[in-house]
């Protein structure tokens, strides 16, 4: 059986990812994120169960809060529907108490503007710092080219998840940041296993031409293919189970994970390694001359 030559067709994968990335950038520029109260001041009240607008208005009126129909949203998977009310104002603890007292299956989050700003700064910092430290580690253990290619693939995954959330207007909260950071960890984990195999094969066979370099990389990719597929399958089993059977609080978190895990598995094979070949081959030709 002749195996598909992944590295040779790299420009198509680069093109595909670039298109998705550009599309994501446009969505960001036009729409931005649908920010939850973790990043935008205000209150978010999540109630287990499906309520009509009139019922919601009644429940809130008793607690001394006025709700307009546009502030009510519904979500959740089948079976356990969720009613979400988002208010631009910060509920007082008195109002929050009254609501929880009335309806015990409630989660209320309030954040004031200052705290929201600090939190969003920290979230961006966390992603940048995590990437930086991972890059440093890979550069030390492998080489700079591997580190940079791996980080590009990793940021690609984080970006795709963010694009999907921006495009479909899914609410972004602190748990979403946790998901992105997990994806960052998984993506680099996955990429490193493949890089490790390339490094090992390079020791056995020193490529002198671009064709040879492509061949070694392709061989490494196919040698680790079963492992790549089996691993992402098991992690996806965990994420998909959480999505379908876990509570509504984890819903967006697991959705981000699922998108990111698929993207992570894809980018490790089709982006990170071909990228490394493209970079490495430059040095190859200059060395020959």
């Amino acid at each position, binding site marked *: 059986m002749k195996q598909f030559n992944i590295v040779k067709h790299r420009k198509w994968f680069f093109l595909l990812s670039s298109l998705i990335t550009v599309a994501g950038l446009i969505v960001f520029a036009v729409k931005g994120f649908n920010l939850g109260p973790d990043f935008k001041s205000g209150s978010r009240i999540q109630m287990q169960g499906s309520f009509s607008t009139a019922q919601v208005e009644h429940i809130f009126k008793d607690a001394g809060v006025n709700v307009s129909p546009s502030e009510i949203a519904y979500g959740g998977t089948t079976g356990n529907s969720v009613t979400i009310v988002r208010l631009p104002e910060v509920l007082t603890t008195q109002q929050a108490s009254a609501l929880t007292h009335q309806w015990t299956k409630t989660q209320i989050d309030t954040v004031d503007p200052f705290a929201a700003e600090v939190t969003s700064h920290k979230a961006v910092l*966390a992603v940048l710092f995590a990437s930086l430290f991972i890059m440093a580690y890979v550069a030390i253990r492998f080489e700079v080219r591997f580190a940079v290619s791996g980080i590009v693939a990793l940021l690609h995954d984080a970006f795709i998840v963010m694009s999907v959330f921006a495009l479909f207007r899914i609410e972004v909260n602190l748990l979403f940041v946790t998901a992105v950071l997990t994806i960052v960890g998984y993506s680099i984990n996955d990429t490193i296993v493949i890089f490790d195999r390339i490094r090992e094969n390079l020791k056995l066979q020193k490529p002198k031409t671009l064709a040879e370099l492509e061949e070694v990389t392709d061989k490494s990719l196919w040698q680790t293919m079963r492992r790549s597929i089996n691993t992402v399958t098991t992690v996806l089993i965990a994420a998909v189970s959480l999505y379908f059977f*876990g509570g509504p609080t984890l819903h967006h978190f697991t959705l981000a994970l699922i998108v990111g895990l698929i993207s992570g598995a894809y980018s490790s094979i089709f982006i990170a390694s071909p990228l490394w070949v493209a970079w490495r081959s430059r040095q190859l030709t200059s060395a020959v001359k």
Partner: protein
Amino acid sequence: MKWIRIFWLLLVAASIVGVTVGTSAGLWKHTKLGLDLRGGYDLVYQIDSQGQALTASDKQAVLTAVQLRVDAAGIGSPNIQLEDQNRIDVQLAGTYSAQQANRIIGQTSQLGMYASAKVKTENGQLLPYTPQNAAIPNSTIVPSGPALVTGKDLKSNASYQQDPQRGDVVAVTFKNPGEWQFITTRYLGKTIYTFLGSQMINSARVTQITPNGQTEITGMTPQQCVLLAKELNAGALPYPLHLVSSTTVGPSLGALSLQTTMRAGLVALVLIFAFMMFVYRTAGVIANLSLIAYGYISLALFSGLGIVLTLPGLAALVLGIGMAVDANIISYERVIDELNSGKSLMSSVIAGNRRALRTIVDSNVTTFVAGIVMYMVGQGDIKGFAMALMLSVATSFLTSVFLSRTMLLQLAKTKILHSSVWFGFGKRRLQTR
């Protein structure tokens, strides 16, 4: 020799399953659950130091004061911690009123007595305080000038009393009787206005010079008096606190979240077990045993170290299962590679594991590094998640490398497996020696 090895393998397998089934319920009981899993209040306060840098002793003083306050209110097992240099995170489990908790924690030090008060009308106009002006609709009474005394100046012996003439009062004693004597001398015959937070609770004419530092605050309901006495006794806050964010989780929602997440974890576990046994056969069974050990050790660590298990933490643990599986898969794929190259089972297991180890170390360390960064940069939920992630990476490394490889090696040594079918690839006779 062969039978002894098989016996030992079965014994290890039985003890992993036995210990887990036998003691995990007990461990679970000792595991601290986060508020998102059992309901409660998470209140975050900003320490308002008026632009000054807080010293370590300042922070400690604020923490102690908050602790005292929460204890005085009779709220059990609070979790109070300093975050981010100038924030205090107070987590309270239970079903009492968050409003009451917030008042007790944050608003106390704002007791102040002022020499004059003004009436602020709706359009921001300040009028002198008179009963007529105070009755203007939508107006508020605000203190004017610096406070003569504040809650800080009081001893911690305030008590609610019923005075025959004045009704419900809070009896208080000043730390420095001389100062109070000076104030009562200076303002004799004049009115002093007492504010609690932004609300005026009473205005009273000073009728006598008080030398012993004792006085009474009037103008409140019996409930308010009891609360104020408690608040004053809990000690003054060195700096005002502002509530910046709060999360309130109803107790039944917390229980529901826990239940659904546990069920999801169980479904995931069963599916992963089936997948591993289908793909890797005997090696899959070994992987599953090490997964059980992973789950058990994680639970023991949470319980033993007293780490609070939150919803994101639980998610990290379920995700950690997938990461533990990865290490097993890497090893088995390597072993299969070696078998394919025609080596015997024994040397394949040894060589495969050795080659896989470096990969596993590198991939685990990178994820661990991400965990450390999250722990240091993040806060609240992210910190909890990072902690669970680091624990699960470390635990999965131990179980999937040491436990799995030892068991696989012992299995190879028993020499009972003669076909590659047992490892989920091809249908070849294996060289067992």
